[in-house]
């Protein structure tokens, strides 16, 4: 499995007590599969994504990304893991306003501060290839405010794929999009997951566009419930 959460519990401080966001969750996604995690606000789906993204450590349980147990890893090692192994697609795109679409992708080659010349050249080429793959070949020089909501979300997806991640984590990608654009984004994620062999987790409260995903997992009060799985899974 490219991504595996085993018996993960996560709590947050809540006044004098603690609120359980994830309750002994076990969840795994193989390479080339797209699993949708659905649930209402506050159900724990964003916490699941944060734990899988190594942005927050669980109280107990283990998180394994691309075969590596993240338990006990230091901040630097986790940062390195996110940079090389995990791609994140944020809610409402979260693009940097000063960068063009191509630069949003190229910045990934500069995150470690080394920016070797060869890597920069490769990043330039790969950025244009990925923008082409998400249908934005002609928009490479546009800044976020010059793109539509759907285009911005596609730039974010392309950015998440820049470092050829093993795991792709997607946070509410359709929340700011209309029906057609939301469907197009989910279709794109499904296609890219299958083409590139990533283990993709899509977190959403909107079940409208999940017809093509490989698996749907419901989350309620921090507990998962399998709702749908295709035969291939």
């Amino acid at each position, binding site marked *: 499995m490219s991504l595996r959460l085993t018996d993960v519990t996560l709590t947050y401080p809540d006044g004098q007590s603690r609120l359980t966001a994830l309750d002994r969750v076990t969840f795994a996604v193989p390479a080339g599969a797209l699993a949708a995690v659905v649930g209402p606000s506050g159900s724990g789906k*964003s916490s699941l994504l944060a734990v899988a993204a190594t942005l927050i450590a669980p109280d107990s349980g283990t998180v394994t990304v691309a075969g590596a147990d993240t338990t006990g890893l230091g901040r630097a090692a986790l*940062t390195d893991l996110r940079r090389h192994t995990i791609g994140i697609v944020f809610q409402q795109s979260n693009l940097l306003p000063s960068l063009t679409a191509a630069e949003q992708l190229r910045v990934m080659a500069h995150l470690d501060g080394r920016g070797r010349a060869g890597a920069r050249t490769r990043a330039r080429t790969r950025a244009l290839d990925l923008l082409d793959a998400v249908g934005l070949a002609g928009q490479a020089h546009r800044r976020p405010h010059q793109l539509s909501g759907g285009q911005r979300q596609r730039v974010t997806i392309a950015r998440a794929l820049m470092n050829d991640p093993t795991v792709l984590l997607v946070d*509410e990608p359709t929340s700011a999009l209309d029906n057609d654009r939301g469907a197009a984004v989910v279709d794109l994620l499904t296609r890219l997951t299958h083409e590139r062999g990533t283990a993709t987790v899509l977190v959403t409260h909107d079940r409208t566009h999940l017809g093509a995903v490989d698996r749907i997992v419901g989350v309620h009060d921090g507990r998962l419930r399998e709702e749908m799985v295709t035969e291939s899974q």
Partner: protein
Amino acid sequence: MFVAWRDLRFAKGRFALMGTVIVLITLLVGLLSGLTAGLGRQNVSAVTGLPADRIAFGGELSYANSTVTEGQWRRWTRTPGVEAAEPLGVTTTRATAGGRGVGVCAFGVRPGSDLAPDSDRLTDHAVVLSHSAAADLGLTAGDTLTLAGQRLTVASVTGDASFSHTPVVWTSLDTWQRTAPPDGPFATVIALRTSGADTATADRAAGTMTVERDDSLSAIGSYSAENGSLQLMRGFLFAISALVVGAFFTVWTIQRGADIAILKALGATTATLLRDALGQAAVLLAGGTVIGSGLAAGLGAALADTVPFLLTPRTVLVPAAVMIVLGMAGAALSVRRITAVDPLTALGSAR
């Protein structure tokens, strides 16, 4: 610097505004530094130009009130380790020539002493003028002037010594003594060139107070007050610049908080983000300081004939370097909040 350069271009209005502030502060600091040095030179150049390493005062540590006797001077000449001890009279008086009258400072030395330029041409009837004194009085070598009631000939015009903002007229010690009241002092101070002399013991024996030449500048009343005030202003400007730069980058870093969280979530190291932010501050500071210093140098050069502005690498480059160092310190204090940005906030955040 990938994001930093692009932020500079993208938010050019904000950075231009901040850059302009840095330019103006640097211009002010540069002008003040040149003016401070220029005024300081007008105050002390006659003393700092003396070929002496120590000055012995009599009675009081003050060029205005010190008096030394011939006996004190002779005792110093006999002191072991003293290579040269020359009496020096200092008096502010008035010189007139051809209807012009200006305040000058009469520096009395023994003819042939190395304290004054062209001192071998000093006699009881001939003086040496600094260029400023000659220009103010409209005199050249061979002309005559009246100094404190004495009619004297200009033996030569050389140097640009001034003391307490008045140009210096070098006279013989006898001539200087005649500018003072009857039974006046032998001299004001004794200029010493020493090599391992026990000055404390010699002071006790001679009844004098000896300080290093540069320390004696505080004995020029106007210099202490004026220089202190100007240095205080300069210090405040440096502090203000550090605070302004720090405040700007604090606001800028807060505004960029969401971007920083995204970059951290994507895998940017905190060190990379700090380097990026400090590099951005360095570019802004360096650009603003270079322009501001250039303007200060140009303006100072243009005004050099009308105001005492001293244009040297020390008066231009040192304040510029201090501006950059203090500005970077201010920026460093503000951008350190980058370390506290939690990448978790990038998830589910509403932008």
